[in-house]
Structure formats: structure tokens, C-alpha cells
């Protein structure tokens, strides 16, 4: 068991993201933030891209952040934190600061996959000692559920609404975790708040590694997913169990799947409780469901083969 990760020990730690924030009931993001901060045994300085988490957690004169926190703009959380981390190195080298501090950026999928992609890629390539956490709820939820490059195939969004001739999103999701791993960073992983111990272990592992790290965490959004608020964690669990959101890590180029469902569930189990996929269950859209299942099967196969390549 990694250091400090038993429930007993965790229950003694202070939650560094306080209650009283204004995130929606049923939002995955604050749960993820709390878990990530619990996973650190060091002081953390955080940066936050503009988005739901940012606008709801620091409305002047209140802040939910009990740690130093900076919001700059939408597309630059990674660049901003790279500046903070560089100042830390500079002041440490000069002997003006002695604390061991960890640096974590939080961004939604819009601020990470799309508008913040260049900033993230640059920061990772430059090798800053930081962990970037993307909470991926699959659309621009803060501005009202617009399509992003993380939106799943077939999903109904406000800028690609399912209509009589358009069946929702007609493009595949960008595989950002793979792209980040292709930067040859020492650690990239996918996690889910449903599998909290897996998530905490990954955070702890990532923070122990020097250099740039990336974690992609599935996050439910009852407004955008058109789902029940009390299904938040259950839906992310179904995402994992259907292999829509495989849990794995790539450490120094070696892929390891960290959770393999005993029996892979049908993608319908993940899609059905979500209103954004309602139209896919009409008879004429059956081909879309088939296609989504095929895409997931193929990627899961590929991931297992990738893991097998490194198995001793």
C-alpha cells in the first residue's frame, strides 16, 4: 500500500478544497480535485484554466482553495503553472525558498484538448516538474454544453444537436492521453473518481516522479450528460467497466492497464442513462451504437496489445 493511502489515514487529512464552492450537485470535478489533493503528501500550488471549476471556486471575496491557487485565462493553465514552477526553481537555486512544493494544473476538456492544447504541449515538452490534470466531461459545459474534441461520437451537444439529419457529433474523440504520452513524458495516465484508490495511487506516483506528468480523469456532468445527479460516480464507473474509459498508465513508455473489468459491459450500459445519447436508441441510429461499440472494442484490443508488448 502506498504511503498514507488507507481510508483511515486519508480520513485524518485536511481536505484542501473546501465545501461551500458553487459547483453543481452531481459534478465530478470537485470530487476529483479533493481526491487529487488528498493524494499529495506535499504542499501543492495549483493553476486552473477558466471553466466551471474556476468560476465556481473563487468568487471574490471567497475562495474554496486552501492552497495557493492561480487562474490566468482559458488556454494557458499549463503555461501559467510553468512560470510558477520556474520561479520556484529560480528562488530555490538562490536559497530564497526551501519548501518542497508540488505543482498541479487543473483544466476541463475544452481548456485542455482544444484551446489549451498548445500551451499544454509546450509545457510538457519543456519538462517542467508539474502534473496536469484534465477533468474530462466531454463538452464545454461551463458555456452550456458545446461540442469539444473530447465529446464522444454521437453525443448531443448545443452546437451539434441531434436533429433530423445530424445524429449528434459525427467525429471521433481525440485520444489526448495517447498524444500526451507521445510527448515522451515520464508519466501519463487515465483515471476515474469511481476507482478512487486507483486515482490516488496514480496521483501519488505521478507526484513522486520529477518532470512533466499528465492525467486524464473522466468527470460526470449531469447538466451536459442529461443524467441524475446521484448517478455521477456510478456513470464514471460504467465508463470504466464498458472500457469507454480504460484505466491505464504509461510510465517511461511502458503501458500498464491498471483495471481490467472481469466482464466488459456493453457500451449501451454507459450510454443509456444519459440523455445526450437518447437519440442513439432509435431504430434508425442503431448503426451508430454499433460503430461506437466497434471503436471501443478496437481501442481496448489495441491497448491490451500495447500492454502485452511490455509484459515480461
Amino acid at each position, binding site marked *: 500500500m502506498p504511503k498514507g493511502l488507507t481510508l483511515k489515514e486519508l480520513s485524518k487529512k485536511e481536505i484542501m478544497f473546501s465545501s461551500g464552492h458553487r459547483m453543481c450537485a452531481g459534478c465530478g470535478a470537485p470530487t476529483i480535485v479533493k481526491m487529487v489533493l488528498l493524494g499529495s503528501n506535499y*504542499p501543492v*500550488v495549483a*493553476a*486552473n484554466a477558466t471553466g466551471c471549476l*474556476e*468560476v465556481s471556486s*473563487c*468568487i*471574490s*471575496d471567497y*475562495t474554496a*482553495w*486552501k*492552497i*495557493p*491557487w*492561480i*487562474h*490566468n*485565462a482559458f*488556454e*494557458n493553465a499549463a*503555461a*501559467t*503553472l*510553468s*512560470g*510558477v*514552477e*520556474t*520561479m*520556484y*526553481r*529560480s*528562488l530555490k*537555486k*538562490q536559497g530564497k*525558498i526551501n*519548501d518542497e*512544493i508540488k505543482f498541479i494544473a487543473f483544466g476541463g476538456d475544452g481548456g485542455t484538448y482544444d484551446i489549451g492544447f*498548445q*500551451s499544454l*504541449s*509546450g*509545457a510538457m*515538452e*519543456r519538462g517542467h516538474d508539474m502534473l496536469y490534470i484534465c477533468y474530462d466531461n466531454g463538452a464545454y459545459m461551463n458555456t452550456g454544453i458545446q461540442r469539444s474534441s473530447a465529446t464522444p461520437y454521437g453525443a448531443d451537444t448545443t452546437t451539434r444537436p441531434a436533429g433530423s439529419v445530424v445524429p449528434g457529433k459525427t467525429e471521433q474523440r481525440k485520444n489526448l492521453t495517447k498524444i500526451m504520452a507521445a510527448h515522451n513524458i515520464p508519466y501519463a495516465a487515465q483515471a476515474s473518481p469511481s476507482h478512487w484508490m486507483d486515482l490516488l495511487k496514480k496521483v501519488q506516483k505521478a507526484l513522486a516522479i520529477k518532470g512533466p506528468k499528465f492525467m486524464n480523469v473522466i468527470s460526470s456532468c449531469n447538466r451536459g450528460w442529461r443524467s441524475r445527479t446521484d448517478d455521477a460516480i456510478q456513470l464514471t464507473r460504467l465508463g470504466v467497466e464498458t472500457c469507454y474509459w480504460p484505466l491505464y498508465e504509461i510510465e517511461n513508455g511502458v503501458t500498464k492497464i491498471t483495471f481490467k473489468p472481469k466482464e466488459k459491459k456493453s457500451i449501451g450500459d454507459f450510454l443509456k442513462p444519459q440523455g445526450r445519447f437518447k437519440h442513439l436508441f432509435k431504430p434508425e441510429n442503431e448503426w451508430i451504437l454499433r460503430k461506437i461499440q466497434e471503436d471501443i472494442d478496437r481501442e481496448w484490443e489495441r491497448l491490451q496489445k500495447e500492454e502485452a508488448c511490455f509484459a515480461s
Partner: protein
Amino acid sequence: MAKVVAVTGNEAVANALRQVNPDVCAVYPITPQTEMMQRFASFISNDLVKTEIILVESEHSSLSACVGASAAGGRVITATSSQGLALMFEILFIASGTRLPIVMPVVNRALSAPINIHGDHSDAMSARDAGWIQLWSENGQEAYDNAIQAFRIAEHMDVRLPVMICMDGFIVSHSIERLEYLEDEEVKNFVGEFKQLNPLLDIEHPVSYGPLILTDYYMEFRKAQDEVNTKVPQIVLDVAEDFAKMSGRKYGLFETYRLDDAEIGLVILNSAAGTSKDVIDEFRDKGIKAGLLKPRLYRPFPYREVGEALKHLKAVCVLDRADAFGSSFGPVYLDIATSLYPYKEKPVLINKIYGLGGRDYLPGHAETVLNELVEIAGTGIPGSLKEYIGVRE
């Protein structure tokens, strides 16, 4: 002891930055700024500064990283030109709204389209209302001196605002001039130790930077930001006085040249002021009372002081090396007109747009403009209020 050198403007400012020795620098290449930061990078590679450099993937990220680094609690620099400044536009407002004392040389260059790498002021003029302090520089010496003074102004506890040091691309950045360097120790003592204010890296006292402020307090926040600007001119003067004691070189909010008893005058920024002064001397030799005003602190603009300096003239031409599309006049003209508006008796004011995209500004141009002013001063009637000069017809 001052050291006399022959260097380019870029080299001079790079040397000022070395002497200031900032904690962090984030930068991206763009002509004509590139040479400055190449030189600075070589200081890092040769252990002549303590600076940690971030070689970012865009100017948007360079200023974003500067915001993070400055909030973290240290002295931060970047530099840019033209399109790079345009790409930073969004973050310019965040840097000033967050009250971060970042210092940024801007080597002025024309904006696209059409793409053009040469010097004009359309880049920094587009950013004149972004909440940054702007110091403009006629030559390499002024750029060097402004760069050193910029840190004291930006980091003043009553200011804490970012500062741009503007200098003409190529004309100054790439021309070798004679100038005087201060001793490293003098510069070090002049700028002093960086004083932290709510540093993000103070984990014992966690602070949140970049809150959401809606209709309830946004306007109060903005008004407070404007009030900070009203303190800037006096602090610029105080810093200039200290600088003069050390260097012997005097600076004000603006420079006046043979203006006190002048009847006609030019208002002009940066390198073209030098050319204009020579022509003014020729007119003075002919017995014509000509003078010049060259703004230095362009933002916040010292309207009252500029108005007082110009109100007694009969005719004034404001020469703009940038156009302000849709407003009919160049940006400096608009500010001078605003400065003079409160006075009952005031000069006739005309505007010439010159030197766009690096087009030469020649003594003949100044001569033509001054001759026109002589005529206007006699009749009190202006011809065209705004014209392009040095342009093919």
C-alpha cells in the same frame, strides 16, 4: 565610472537586463526583438545571470508564464514585437489587472497585413489602453536607461504594474550607437532587491489569484486600477531624479526641445524625434521659433503637463508612426488634442502619419511640415487636418 560603448539598441537593452539580473525570463523569437533575447540567453549559458529562462512555444504562453512567475514572487521579464504583442493581447490585460510588475521591452514593428518586419508603432499603440505603463525611447541610450528605470517604477509598492519599454525596430534595435553603460554594481543598487507582495509560493499564507468578480464589484475594481495610474507620473519623476543622480542623464514625463518660446512645434515619439531636432535647429537659425515635444511616459498619459507645455504655441503638428483606423487621426494626435481641449487659447493642431512599415522619415519631411506650420501660424487656418507624408501618390 561610466563605460562608453558602441552597441545596437538590442544589445544595450540586453545588457541592462543582465545588469538587473531578473529571476525568470520567458520569451519567444520574433524579428526585430530576437537579437535582444539571443544575447540575454548567452548570458544565461555563460553564467552571467541567475535567471531561469522559459523558451515557450508562443508569445501567448510567454506572457502567460510571466504572469505565473511574477505571481509566484520574483522579478520577471519578457520581450516582443508586432505580431507577438498582438498574440499576447488577452494576457496584457490580465497582467495589469492582476497588478504584476513584469517588464517587457517592445521593439516596435508594423502589424500585418501585409506582413512587414520593419519599425512602426502600430504594435504598442494597439496595446496602449491595456493597463501597462509605456516608456518610449528615442535611441539606444534611452532604451537602456528606460529599461533600468522600468523595474523601479513597476515594482514600486504604490504601483505594481507591468511596464513596456518601446524602441523603434531596426532604426534603434539594429543600429550601432555610442552610449554609456552604468557599472553593474550601480544598476544592482539602483533597482534593489525585489520585494514580494502576496507571493503564490508562500505556502504558509495561501492566496488565490484570478477570482471571478461580477456586477457587484467589477466596476469598483476597475476604478481602483485607474486610481493607481494617477500615482504613476510622480513615481516616474522620482525614479528619474534618482537615476539622474547616478548617471547624470535627466528624464521627465516627456522631453521638450526649444519649446519654451516656440510658436510652432512638433510632437513626435522615438527615433524620428532626433531627425526632427536637427531640422528645428535649422529653422531656429533662420529665426523661426520652432520647438518639439517628445512623449516619454505615454501611458498613463500626462495630459495636464503636456497641455501646459503646448498651450502657448500657435500651430502644432503631431506626427504619428501608426494609424488609428476609423478614428480619423493617429493615436498620439488624439491624446494631444485631449490635452489641449480644456484651454480657451490653444494652437491649431494638425496630424501627419509617417514612417509606416519602416518607411524612412527624412529631414525633408520635417522641413515640409514645419513650413506648413509657419503658414498656419500666420493665417490661423489649417489646410488638411490629417495627411500621410512620405507616401507615393
